[in-house]
């Protein structure tokens, strides 16, 4: 049994969001630079240049990369030998988020869905918790903007549609999204499970280093194929036309039911923000 204070969790959540909203990862910056080298469209190149300049400026000035500092999504893996001390773990996470959004001058974008009443501190967070072996806690902060979130889709395919149906669904989701989700995008895909689990996998896949292939060779091959097909759509940076519609496709899979083939697509804009800490 290892004791971890909820105060430490709060501090960690706060510092992860402060960093994630202002400092784009070297993974994304590397992919943007590589895309700039390849992009043929003059508008596409201009947009990519602006994005790289913006990301560097944001990190230097500790400003948010994008004014949409998102809903605060957190993936938390808790070792089964951990005992949280010092208060309510859920409250600690909310306080960490609240502090980060206030201290960072991040936008308060969270409101009640029907009455549209803003909570003014960007809480509540969306927390996905998993119990794992060991005595550590892994926290990943992934602020999620809604320009791209709005373009996410769930396809409940039938088994007859098979692998080809899965591939076509993903490409179709990106095509229908067009210039809306702030391309170049990272396409998160969850295949199998249940309806809600497929989308959770799609979301979780976005916490992988951008462009790192799936450890599963079959999925890695599908990621490469889909990235190529998506970049033939012509949508391009910001939808103004070009070769760079997506920076990466990330896929996760899970067993499913004999009657089904769920495919979830969670769209992520080029501000693919995610920071992880292990306590």
């Amino acid at each position, binding site marked *: 049994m290892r004791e971890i204070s909820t105060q430490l969790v709060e501090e960690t959540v706060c510092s992860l969001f402060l960093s994630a909203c202002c400092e784009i990862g070297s993974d994304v910056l590397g992919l943007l630079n590589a895309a700039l080298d390849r992009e043929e469209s003059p508008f596409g190149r201009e947009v990519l240049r*602006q994005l790289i300049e913006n990301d560097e400026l944001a990190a230097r000035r500790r*400003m948010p990369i*994008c004014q949409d500092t998102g809903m605060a999504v957190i993936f938390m893996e808790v070792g089964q030998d951990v005992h949280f001390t010092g208060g309510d773990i859920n409250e600690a996470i909310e306080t960490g988020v609240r502090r980060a959004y206030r201290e960072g001058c991040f936008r308060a974008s969270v409101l009640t869905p029907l009455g549209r009443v803003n909570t003014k501190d960007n809480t509540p967070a969306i927390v996905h918790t998993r119990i794992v072996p060991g005595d550590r806690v892994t926290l990943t902060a992934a602020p999620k903007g809604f320009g791209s979130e709005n373009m996410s889709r769930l396809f409940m395919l039938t088994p007859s549609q098979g692998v080809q149906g899965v591939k076509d669904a993903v490409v179709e989701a990106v095509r229908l999204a067009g210039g809306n989700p702030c391309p170049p995008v990272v396409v998160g895909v969850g295949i199998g499970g249940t309806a809600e689990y497929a989308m959770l996998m799609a979301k979780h896949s976005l916490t992988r280093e951008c462009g790192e292939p799936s450890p599963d060779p079959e999925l890695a091959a599908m990621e490469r194929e889909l990235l190529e097909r998506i970049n033939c759509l012509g949508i391009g940076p910001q939808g103004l*036309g070009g070769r760079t519609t997506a920076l990466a496709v990330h896929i996760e899979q899970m067993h499913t039911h004999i009657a089904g083939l769920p495919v979830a697509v969670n769209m992520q804009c080029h501000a693919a923000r995610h920071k992880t800490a292990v306590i």
Partner: protein
Amino acid sequence: MVKQIHAPLQPEELASLRAGDSVLLSGTIYTGRDAAHKRMCALIADGQALPFDVRGQVIYYAGPCPAKTGDVIGSCGPTTSSRMDAYSPLLCGLGLIGMIGKGPRGPQVVEAIQRNGGVYFAATGGAGALIAGCVKAVNVIAFDDLGTEAIRELKVENLPLIVAVDAHGGNLYEQGPAQYRRE
């Protein structure tokens, strides 16, 4: 070549704009996004006055971050314009000239732009920190209770934009992708 233009746009300046033009916009524009549009259209439906006269003006679909101490404004990039498609034809009909946002517009907005002689500019989505540097003054003029979604008057200098939809049938969101699509 990059054109320098000024808001509010003069008729001859507006008439010269074509989809695919890169421009640097200076002058006065107004922020307004989902909630502000909804309120404005409710005011119109009730026959009440809008918080500012939209005739000849440019609306920027943006909800900025709070300003850090010493800054004019926080990150301030465009939001997805298609969510405003439900409201834009009404505002264009009242004389709104320009819209700034990101992403394609629906056919009803493209048609309203052509019918009323307007223009839709694309700003770079996700370049919020860069765009904040173009904002020289900010003044909340309406719906302060909406927080980031309040209507703000912005004084901007050299805001980099691309003319995406013009009044003459040009639409970069159709022409651009068609040029680079590969079967």
